[in-house]
């Protein structure tokens, strides 16, 4: 897989509440800490920047309103991810704009030719996002979500299992097939 690489973008400006210690300023901190990962998840699940922007806004607003329902038995990040995943799923269902595969494990990935151990080579930065999106769009929903969550190094397999209602062992097994499927499709986008 060939794509061009440039330096990571500088951190975005985040609106800050003027006085520290207020609910709004604490919320600004929460947004500052997690907005990138939540926006990226929404972007790649919904495939459109406009929809991702609306979804990210709605996810954080929901978090602000529902903070009293946060029981503290998961991390705030996991809680935000759960809200985002549910929100995106509801949107996808409403829009009927996704091709759904009922059982990701049944399909062609086990017999796909592309190996998972060959590196993904990237040459053109400009097209990287487009190629990634094209690839993710071709994956079963389960694999797409799994890869996006595993890409967040702060999430453990247990946390990902909790977010996707399966065991950490099941995650490990499916991850292998998800990687294979991604590599197969990504190479076709070159």
């Amino acid at each position, binding site marked *: *897989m*060939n*794509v*061009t*690489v*440039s330096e*990571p*973008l500088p951190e*975005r400006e*985040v*609106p800050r509440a003027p006085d*520290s*210690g*207020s*609910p*709004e300023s*604490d*919320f600004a*901190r929460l*947004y500052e800490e997690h*907005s*990138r*990962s939540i*926006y*990226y998840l929404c*972007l*790649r699940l919904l495939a459109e*920047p406009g929809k991702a*922007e609306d979804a*990210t*806004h709605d996810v*954080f*607003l929901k978090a*602000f*309103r529902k*903070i*009293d329902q*946060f029981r*503290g038995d998961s991390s*705030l990040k996991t809680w935000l991810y759960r809200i985002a995943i549910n929100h995106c799923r509801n949107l996808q269902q409403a829009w009927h704009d996704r091709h759904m595969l009922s059982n990701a494990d049944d399909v062609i990935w086990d017999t796909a030719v592309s190996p*998972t151990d060959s*590196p*993904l*080579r*990237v*040459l*053109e930065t400009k097209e*990287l*996002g487009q190629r*990634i999106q094209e690839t993710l769009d071709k994956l079963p929903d389960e694999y797409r979500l799994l*890869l*996006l969550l*595993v*890409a*967040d*190094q702060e999430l453990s397999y247990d946390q990902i299992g909790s977010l996707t209602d399966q065991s950490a062992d099941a995650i490990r097994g499916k991850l292998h097939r998800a*990687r294979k499927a*991604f*590599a197969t499709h*990504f190479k076709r986008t070159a």
Partner: protein
Amino acid sequence: MKREMKLNSQQQQQQEEQVHTQAERATEFATPEELLRHDALQTPVPPAIGQRLQQSVSQIKPLPKTWWQRLLGS
């Protein structure tokens, strides 16, 4: 004619340099997760989200301080 050939030669050299530069900058990712992680770092969060959120939050009745203080340790 000579000038055209010279230009073509220059263009060819430039193209070769570009290819060389691209080859040097090519990066390999061992797994899709690494690629996605890199892509996430390259993807800026639109500032409009924060602005809209600030407006939306300001229209909501303030929440008791203790919830956020408890959760965020402030």
